[in-house]
């Protein structure tokens, strides 16, 4: 089964329809998704700012990370669960949304950034832990994370707008290709 076929099947399941049509549950899930931004993105911004040497300079970088991490994990979990539910409520349109696809790509890049950071710069944190302004490689990771998350919030907000939806034709070929639109053969 193709991914599109899977999304079409998902859209027919009773719980997906119920969530989509519910007066309270969908807004509640979406509000919680936005709320988790404050916890997860709000705290990652603080950590990124520490890596950039722009906030909490008097506190060791490793301590900032250690103290914020449990809350960030909780915020991220909340964000992923509510995000999956939002996708589950509107699977086909979301799957074929240009902005959703950009968002998923950016999320993967943000994950890659974290992985590279932990595999490289973070290993030597003991040597720069007390520096008010961390070394260039740490600052680069912090800046990349900040930029990626701002873009993720932008892309996420734009999913709500239908400018590039597949049922709004004609669109430039590149848009239809990127959004995975299946065009009828007229």
């Amino acid at each position, binding site marked *: 089964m193709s991914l599109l076929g899977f999304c079409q099947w998902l859209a027919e399941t009773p719980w997906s329809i119920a969530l989509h049509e519910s007066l309270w549950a969908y807004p509640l899930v979406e509000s919680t998704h936005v709320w988790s931004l404050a916890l997860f*993105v709000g705290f990652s911004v603080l950590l990124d700012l520490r890596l950039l040497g722009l906030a909490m300079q008097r506190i060791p970088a490793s301590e900032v990370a250690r103290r*914020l991490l449990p809350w960030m994990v909780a915020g991220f979990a909340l964000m992923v669960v509510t995000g999956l539910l939002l996708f589950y409520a509107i699977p086909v349109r979301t799957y074929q949304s240009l902005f959703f696809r950009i968002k998923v790509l950016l999320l993967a890049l943000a994950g890659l950034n974290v992985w590279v950071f932990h595999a490289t710069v973070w290993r030597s944190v003991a040597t720069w832990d007390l520096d008010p302004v961390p070394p260039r490689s740490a600052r680069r990771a912090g800046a990349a994370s900040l930029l990626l998350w701002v873009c993720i919030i932008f892309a996420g907000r734009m999913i709500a707008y239908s400018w590039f939806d597949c049922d709004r034709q004609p669109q430039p070929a590149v848009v239809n290709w990127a959004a995975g639109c299946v065009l009828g053969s007229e």
Partner: protein
Amino acid sequence: MTSLLPFFEWCETTRLGAAIRDSLWLFPVIEAVHLVAFAVLGGAVLLVNLRLLGLAFRSQPVARLAQDAAPWLGGSLAVALVSGSLLFLSESVKLYHSEPFRLKIASLVLALLFTFSAHRKVTLADEAHARPFAGRLAAVVSLALWAGVAWGGRWIGFSG
């Protein structure tokens, strides 16, 4: 009592309000900026209040964390207020009739007054004069008021 409606109607007629309303992209982009500001503001508010509640960063004094968070709280608040005002100008008559908007503005006024008076006094008190109960109370009140701002804001979009 005179109605505020004429003022809200005037806001919509401003050139800035009309430009945002007529543009396809401006409103969504300003909305996203507003959301980024919300995330940073939320992070700063949560950091200080979770510390006051004794739930995060217990290794650091409250006053130090509050001082560290202050510029980011102020900066994100400024961005949120400016972007929020722009969004308001573009659809003020709709907002005049919106219950969630009223909740949001009422909570916002209270949150600002509280943050820059009692809450500030509690967080910046030095360790020797810190009163744990006052700190926890200030944190709960602050979180409740900012929660009102955020819920009201998100619900404006759902209430049509």
